[in-house]
C-alpha cells in the first residue's frame, strides 16, 4: 500500500483508523495463538522424540531377532509361519481440536487381547528367535500407534505455526506500519488544508475590508 495513492479525505481517515484497530486486535490474537501453539508443539516434540527412540530401538531388536530367525529357518518356512496372522487390528480415528488445528486421535482394537497369544504358528517347527522377534515387535506395537498420532500432530502443528508466524509478521512489520504512515499522512494533509483555508479566509477578509472601508490594517 503506497502512501501516494490514497486520497486524503476524512472518510478515508476514519476507514483507515478502524482498519488499524482491527489489525492490531488481530495481531494480538494471532500472537497469542502462535505462543500457545508453540507451547503445545514443544511438548509434543519432546514426547515424539522419546517415542521415536523407543520404537526405533524395539524395531531394531525385532529386526535383529528376525534376521537370526531367517538364518536358522528356511525362508519358505518363515513365510509360512507368518502367513496367517492371529492378530487383527482395527483402527478408529477421531479428530481433536488443538487451537483450531484438527489432529487425528487413533483408537485401536486388537482381536487377540492376550499379548502372550499372538504367535500365529506352532512352536514345534519354528526357531525361538522368531518368537523373540515377534515379541519385540509387539512390545512396541502400541507405541507405534502413539508415535503415528504424535508425529502427525507434530507435522500439522508445525504447518499451522508456520502459517500463523507469517501472518503475525506480515501484520506486525508490513500492514500495521503501513497503515500508521497512511493515517499520519492523511491527518497532516488535512491539517495543512485547514491552515490554507484559514489563511485564504484571512486574506479575503483583508481585501473586503480594504475595498469597503478603505481600511488598511
Amino acid at each position: 500500500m503506497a502512501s501516494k495513492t490514497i486520497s486524503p479525505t476524512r472518510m478515508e481517515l476514519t476507514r483507515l483508523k478502524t482498519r488499524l484497530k482491527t489489525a492490531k486486535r488481530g495481531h494480538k490474537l494471532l500472537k497469542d495463538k502462535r505462543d500457545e501453539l508453540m507451547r503445545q508443539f514443544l511438548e509434543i516434540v519432546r514426547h515424539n522424540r522419546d517415542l521415536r527412540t523407543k520404537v526405533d530401538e524395539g524395531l531394531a531388536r525385532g529386526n535383529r531377532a528376525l534376521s537370526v530367525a531367517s538364518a536358522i529357518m528356511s525362508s519358505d518356512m518363515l513365510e509360512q509361519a507368518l502367513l496367517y496372522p492371529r492378530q487383527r487390528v482395527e483402527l478408529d480415528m477421531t479428530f481433536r481440536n488443538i487451537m483450531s488445528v484438527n489432529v487425528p486421535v487413533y483408537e485401536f482394537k486388537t482381536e487377540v487381547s492376550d499379548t502372550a497369544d499372538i504367535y500365529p504358528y506352532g512352536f514345534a517347527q519354528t526357531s525361538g528367535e522368531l518368537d523373540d522377534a515377534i515379541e519385540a515387535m509387539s512390545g512396541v506395537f502400541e507405541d507405534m500407534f502413539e508415535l503415528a498420532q504424535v508425529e502427525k500432530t507434530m507435522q500439522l502443528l508445525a504447518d499451522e505455526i508456520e502459517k500463523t508466524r507469517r501472518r503475525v509478521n506480515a501484520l506486525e512489520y508490513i500492514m500495521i506500519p503501513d497503515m500508521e504512515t497512511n493515517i499520519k499522512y492523511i491527518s497532516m494533509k488535512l491539517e495543512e488544508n485547514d491552515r490554507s483555508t484559514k489563511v485564504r479566509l484571512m486574506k479575503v477578509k483583508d481585501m473586503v475590508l480594504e475595498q469597503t472601508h478603505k481600511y488598511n490594517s
Partner: protein
Amino acid sequence: MYKIAVMGGADTVLGFKALGLDTYPVSSDDEARRVFKRLTEPDEKYAIIYMEERLSQTLAEEISEYNDKPVPAVILIPGRDGSMGLGLTALHNAVMRAVGADIL
C-alpha cells in the same frame, strides 16, 4: 474403520504381518511409488502408513504432499539393516519449520 499399512522391503514387512497389519512388500522404486499412490487413495482408507526409511528418499516428494493433511500419517520405521535415523531427521525438520531454528 481405518486400516494400517506397512510398506518396505520384503524382509522388513514380514514381521509386521504377524502383528496383523497389512503389509506391502516392494522391491523397486517404481513399485514403491505405485503402491504408495494406491495406498493414499481415499477409498483405501489407510490412516497410517508405516514406511521403511530407505523408501522415504525415493518417495520424498510424494510424502511431503501428505505432511500437512490429517490423513494418512506417513511414519518412517527402521528397516532390516538398521536405523538410518531418518525418523529423527523428520522431527528436526518439523521443528525447523515451526520455530525457524533447530532448538533440539
